[in-house]
């Protein structure tokens, strides 16, 4: 029994991305820092306990009320060390939240208690995420019900799945294999069963996997979005020909001005908000007349609409 238990003994999860290696480097630095003080401080205490052991009951040590140089030293040194940690941690964080432009967008929806995943080519899967190696993947994550968190330890990344908004993170796997996927935010009874795996494949294997037709349809999100766009009659206003709504041509990632004088970049979150809560911001020059589609379209359908809208007016 003990051999089986100890076989798994290790201190680091596998590193399956460059980012993972960088996080581990910061971790080693912190561990070293902690180790130094965790050895040094108790060592001082043991030394003091022996060297300055009370010799008699009426012993009165010489009082020392303070020392300005010492107090400055142990204020300034921790300050400098923590500022290094702050900067280092911030750089890693901005790396994790800034995907390269050539990323593949994969959509993730959490619900009690499963992960629903859709690939840009239309392939859907549950609790499994197949990705090609050496290809940046951007995950667009949301939830249908409560908070969840999409956690991939081998890449040292996680992001909460929050109902009502999109969150993104990205990774580029450098190693093929099958690794853990966990839900890290407590989400109710079967939280610990909301697990799965990320399967990193060679590009050829990935293409092959995409071809395997094990489900109905496998329409691409763009095609499904186009169909929905006309089914929901979005084009009766958003037709780019002086309709009641603003044109959606080349909308994605441009700046949109609102009637209240504010503006925003039209990213996925903005387009999502415009579909489910259109009255929150009204585009300048138009009236607040669009009805909400909250409850009429599922999270997957919102994603398909967005995928289609992103292609409008793009050569």
């Amino acid at each position, binding site marked *: 029994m003990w051999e089986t238990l100890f076989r798994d003994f290790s*201190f680091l999860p596998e590193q399956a991305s460059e980012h993972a290696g960088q996080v581990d480097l910061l971790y080693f630095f912190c561990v070293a820092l902690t180790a130094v003080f965790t050895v040094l401080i108790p060592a*001082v205490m043991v030394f003091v306990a022996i060297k300055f052991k009370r010799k008699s009951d009426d012993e009165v*040590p010489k009082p020392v*009320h303070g020392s300005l140089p010492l*107090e400055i030293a142990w204020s300034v040194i921790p300050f400098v060390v923590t500022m290094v940690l702050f900067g280092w941690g911030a750089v890693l964080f901005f790396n994790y939240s800034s995907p390269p432009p050539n990323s593949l967008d994969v959509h993730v929806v959490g619900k009690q208690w499963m992960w629903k995943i859709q690939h840009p080519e239309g392939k859907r899967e549950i609790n499994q995420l197949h990705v090609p190696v050496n290809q940046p993947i951007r995950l667009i994550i949301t939830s249908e019900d409560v908070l969840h968190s999409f956690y991939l330890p081998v890449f040292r990344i*996680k992001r909460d799945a929050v109902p009502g908004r999109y969150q993104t993170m990205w990774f580029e796997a450098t190693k093929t294999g099958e690794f853990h996927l966990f839900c890290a935010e407590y989400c109710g*009874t079967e939280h610990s069963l909301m697990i799965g795996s990320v399967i990193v494949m060679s590009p050829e294997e990935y293409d092959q996997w995409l071809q395997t037709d094990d489900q109905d349809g496998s329409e691409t999100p763009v095609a499904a979005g186009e169909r929905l766009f006309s089914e929901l009659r979005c084009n009766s206003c958003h037709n780019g020909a002086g309709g009641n709504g603003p044109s959606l041509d080349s909308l994605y990632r441009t700046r949109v001005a609102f009637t209240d004088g504010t503006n925003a970049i039209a990213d996925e979150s903005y387009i999502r908000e415009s579909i489910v809560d259109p009255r929150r911001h009204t585009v300048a020059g138009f009236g607040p007349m669009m009805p909400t589609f909250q409850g009429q379209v599922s999270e997957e359908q919102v994603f398909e609409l967005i995928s289609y809208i992103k292609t409008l007016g793009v050569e």
Partner: protein
Amino acid sequence: METTSSSLPLADKPKPNYLTASYGIKSWLLTLDHKRIGILYIITLTTFFMMGGVYAALIRLELLTPAGDLLSSEAYNRTFTGHGVLMVFFVLVPLIPATMGNFLLPLMIGARDVAFPRLNLLSWYLLVIGGLTAASALLTGGVDTGWTFYAPLSSRYANGAVLVAIVGAFIAGFSSILTGLNFVITIHKMRAPGLTWFRLPLMVWAIYATSLIQVLATPVVAITLTLLALERLFGVGIFDPALGGDPILFEHMFWFYSHPVVYIMILPAFGVMSEVISCFSKKAIFGYRIIAYSSLAIAALGFIVWGHHMFVSGQSAYLGLVFSLLTMLIAVPTAIKIFGWLATMWGGSVELATPMLYAMGFIGLFTIGGLTGLFLAAMGLDVHVHDTYFIVAHFHYVMVGSAIMGYMSALHFWWPKMFGRMYPKTLAKVAAVLVFVGFNLTFFPQFVVGYLGMPRRYHFYPPEFQIYNVFSTAGAMVLGIAYLLPLLYFPYSLFKGEKVGANPWGAKGLEWETASPPPTENFEFTPVVTEEAYAYAKEGEPVVH
């Protein structure tokens, strides 16, 4: 009866102390004496601690194997929720201020009682009522939201007695606010003649800083829980996006209270450290003023770092930057304290009595707890370890390793003052060492398994994580035994312990100048303070500044 007592010569009759001044259950339940109220809190919190401990034992037994074979997932979730709710709201928050603070604060400042004795008794009743309400929720319907009550899980999805548990925490919150208010006013208005702010024991400074947080932060959790109840009861959309609410708002409001709460737990323990370490080194605290100011700095900074719980939650990355930076700054006042205590011991006359062993254990555990906090304040690293066992280990090092060690140190230090008798010293030292060993064995492996990726609040877990959980469970058994020992030798010492005088440790401070146990009125004459705190040196001895 009358004839017997009048026939005794007056000198033979021992002067009554606060324990013998009156008898009977009513004299305790209606007491306005801060010392008796302190004892009532000790009994109450010990009871809640044992209940929370039973939950902890169930968690550790379940996690011995990766398969969820002892409890159902639902029962497991209720178990860790019960553990968290009881330990945080009903043990750790009131722990040192309500027990030791109540008993000691008036004694330390040379007052007869706190400013509002009736309010003080009401605070105890509120905690008991809140605790019983929460306990009834946990025992009857059960609550499976986690102690964090994150919405919309808690407001719209979870079954069970969530509302009742919220009401319990809400009521206990008022106990905390009123105690804080009482202490702030007591410290401002009731200090003995000559006891200026910078002659106060550092324990009083720490209680003062803690009370400010209790008064300022607790109303926010009361508001948050009320809004949660409104959403759950009437479907008022505040946190659930399906109703037009925002779940991130809940996290902001919750952590605006629940981060300062950590300092409510730890600051009084810092105060205890200053008293114990100076006494058992027979030396004034190194850098008195800077340690006093650092308590206030920690209290103030503690209010503006809550967002470090939310780096991956959907909070803006730039907001995250600010929170990361501010969190790092807390390392500075904390380091000042730790090095100040070490410098106090240096060149002292060091005696390893039980309170000192706990104090040294505190420094060791708090060093690890504090430094691992830096891992979590560094945003890019927190992304990986957030919501894993690394966090569980970190906050247990701070909240149990440090706060409970501080409490145990205080209890062993002032026990002879409270009851006039000493506990069995050797047994107490054995227990102190066992607590330290058991604690590290329980929680150190959790840092490792957390970095490996084991998420917290997992009922089932992958088999490769088992070895660390086996260590943890073994450690928890040692820790459990170590915590049981004082439950045996403290009551024993009440009857059989060696009797001690007013000042068995040769300590400085007004509380050591009155009898042990003190009389109901604390001091026969109002004390007049003419010297600095911790004046262990002989009069006329040259002082090195």
